[in-house]
């Protein structure tokens, strides 16, 4: 029996992955970096979540936290990461190893360096299979060749016996995908899987991921800075900025009615076909220094709508069905009811009132 054709188990109710209030901080010599600061989101069975943001916004650290791959000086301080209801944060090292590469697999941005140069591609896939199921070396190897075939590598027998440096970047990313999917995970975390590849190869890899997603009925957490990729792949979108979720909704809503000025900025900076523009919009300014974050809204220095109230941290408020945004603007884009320059106490109270349980 081939793994790929196996029927997925009856799905329990509730989301596959449910992250609540995750805080991952790095305790560096220069100070504490709040890389992930109270992030919540969930991914349903077989769903694809796009996590979007500029580099350094904490999206990769979020993914590494889910895998429990955070190392010194980083630490998961708070929060829950529930996979099918089981809190991964509380698992022992032994238990989390059984989850890694088995229930959750991960592929990375750099296919050139993500494979071990001294082992053959086949060995590395077979190893992934062997860790989670007591299979013989021969079976593991057979599975490796089978997987290479599934990810569309021609002549998989020969390729399996080759070392990573003998393959092109696109091929290596296919090997990574084969390795990640060899155990039929329920969730695939793809951290910028196409960023390092040529545009034509990018399209092929995304197509491959789509096909395999359908075939294996797995969920994908797709981390990218490329809104085009998200539009093509994702069901839901989380936009992150400086370690926090700033906007969250289904993909159509984000593209049609973005609420947060940062999301609007990101979308405005995309070139659109058939639209004549003198120049592309840019978000002015740079991501704030993580060691020296501004008080209040983290985006206020770059925000074209900044108001005095933005000195108070804005609430994550409901701006539509399942659409939340961390901004003071009302759902229609007006200054909040409490006024644009209330007292600090009024602003605090308004923040509590507007805030949705996350």
């Amino acid at each position, binding site marked *: 029996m081939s793994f790929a054709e196996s029927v997925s188990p009856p799905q329990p109710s509730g989301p596959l992955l449910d992250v609540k209030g995750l805080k991952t901080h790095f305790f560096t010599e220069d100070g504490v970096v709040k890389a992930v600061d109270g992030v919540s989101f969930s991914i349903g069975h077989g769903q694809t979540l796009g996590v979007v943001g500029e580099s350094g916004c904490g999206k990769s650290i979020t993914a590494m936290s889910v*895998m429990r*791959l955070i190392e*010194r000086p980083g630490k998961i301080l708070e929060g829950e990461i529930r996979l099918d209801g089981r809190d991964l944060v509380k698992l022992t*090292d032994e238990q989390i*190893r*059984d*989850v*890694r*590469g*088995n229930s959750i*697999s*991960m592929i*990375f941005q*750099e296919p050139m*360096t*993500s*494979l*071990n*140069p*001294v*082992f053959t591609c086949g060995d590395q896939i077979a*190893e*992934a299979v062997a*860790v*989670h199921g007591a299979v013989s070396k021969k079976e593991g190897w057979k599975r490796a060749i089978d997987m290479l075939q599934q990810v569309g590598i021609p002549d998989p027998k020969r390729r399996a016996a080759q*070392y990573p*440096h003998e393959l092109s970047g696109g091929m290596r990313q296919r090997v*990574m995908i084969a*390795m990640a999917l060899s155990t039929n995970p329920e969730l695939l975390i793809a951290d910028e899987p196409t960023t390092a590849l040529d545009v034509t190869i990018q399209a092929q890899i995304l197509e491959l991921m789509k096909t395999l997603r359908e075939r294996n009925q797995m969920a994908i957490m797709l981390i990218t800075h490329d809104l085009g990729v998200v539009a093509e792949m994702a069901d839901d979108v989380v936009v992150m900025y400086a370690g926090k979720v700033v906007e969250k909704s289904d993909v159509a809503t984000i593209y049609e009615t973005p609420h947060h000025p940062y999301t609007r900025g990101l979308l405005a900076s995309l070139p659109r076909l058939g639209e004549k523009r003198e120049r592309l919009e840019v978000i002015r300014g740079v991501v704030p220094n993580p060691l020296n974050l501004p008080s209040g809204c983290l985006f206020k220095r770059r925000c074209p709508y900044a108001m005095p109230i933005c000195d108070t941290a804005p609430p994550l408020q409901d701006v539509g069905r399942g659409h939340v945004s961390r901004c003071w603007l009302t759902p229609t884009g007006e200054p909040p009811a409490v006024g644009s320059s209330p007292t600090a106490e009024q602003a605090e109270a308004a923040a509590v009132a507007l805030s949705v349980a996350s």
Partner: protein
Amino acid sequence: MATYILRRVIQAIPIVVGISVLTFLIVYLTPGSPVDRFRSPRVSAEAIAALIRSYGLDQPLPIQFFKWFTKFWSFPWDPNAWGFSFVDGKPVRDTIIARIPATLELTGMALLLTVVLAIPIGVLQAVKQYSWWDKIITILETIGYAMPTFWLGLILKQLFSIQFNMFPLFGMHTIGKTDLPDLLWHLALPVATLTVVSTAGWSRYMRASMLEVLRADFIRTAKSKGLGARQVIFKHALRNALIPIVTLLGLTIPTLLSGAAITEAVFSWPGLGGLGVDAVRDRDYPVVLATVMIGGVFVIIGNLLADIAYGYVDPRIKY
């Protein structure tokens, strides 16, 4: 592979000629002569002239070089090919061959201990980076690395030979004894001297290499597969971290023969290094030349072996 080795050997020929010429020039062009030590009012000028003739020092330099060079390289199986010592008149080749075992016992044992100690120490340090263990070992390594061998040798002698009277002060055998325990007993301090200093350097190197590999992307991949710490460290990381160590090994091979001159001097160990130093002191040109040549050839062989070994341990390198 065979063509690669052949190419390397051919490339080595000009270097061998180069080191021959350079050494020969240094030996013969510097002021002073090996017959100087025989000069005294009681030795006649004729006797000195005869001595110069018998050493061949009266001939033009290029001829001397040519004769020595062709003989040295063409007939290594001929015991007389490397000439005769100016000091005791014995064939240089035999003298050198007789000294090789003592040197190899000393340096080989030290190298073996170094590898056995340094690799686990460096790996453990890298894995436990920031720990107290790592900090203490790093300090010890720094001191060990900064310690000149001859001073360490003296300290060990003073502590273990004089204070505690546990090991002999110098030499290779107790007079009249040639058994293994006696040899090991004499080896202990000189081997310890060499081992401490080289372990300090090697483990530092191993630690740095391992730390670099542990930060590599493929280690993250290995962890994300769900591999245990042991497999990640000993299979994925160590295999890669050992690659640069091969170079170190290649660089160390020549010192197996020549590198222990100072330690040999401190412990009066009858090895090749000491022979070379004594030969320089006595201006025993044939012995000096032979010693340097052997050192040079071993450097070339060491480099070649390191490169060949590299091809085996690193699949990215093909010849």
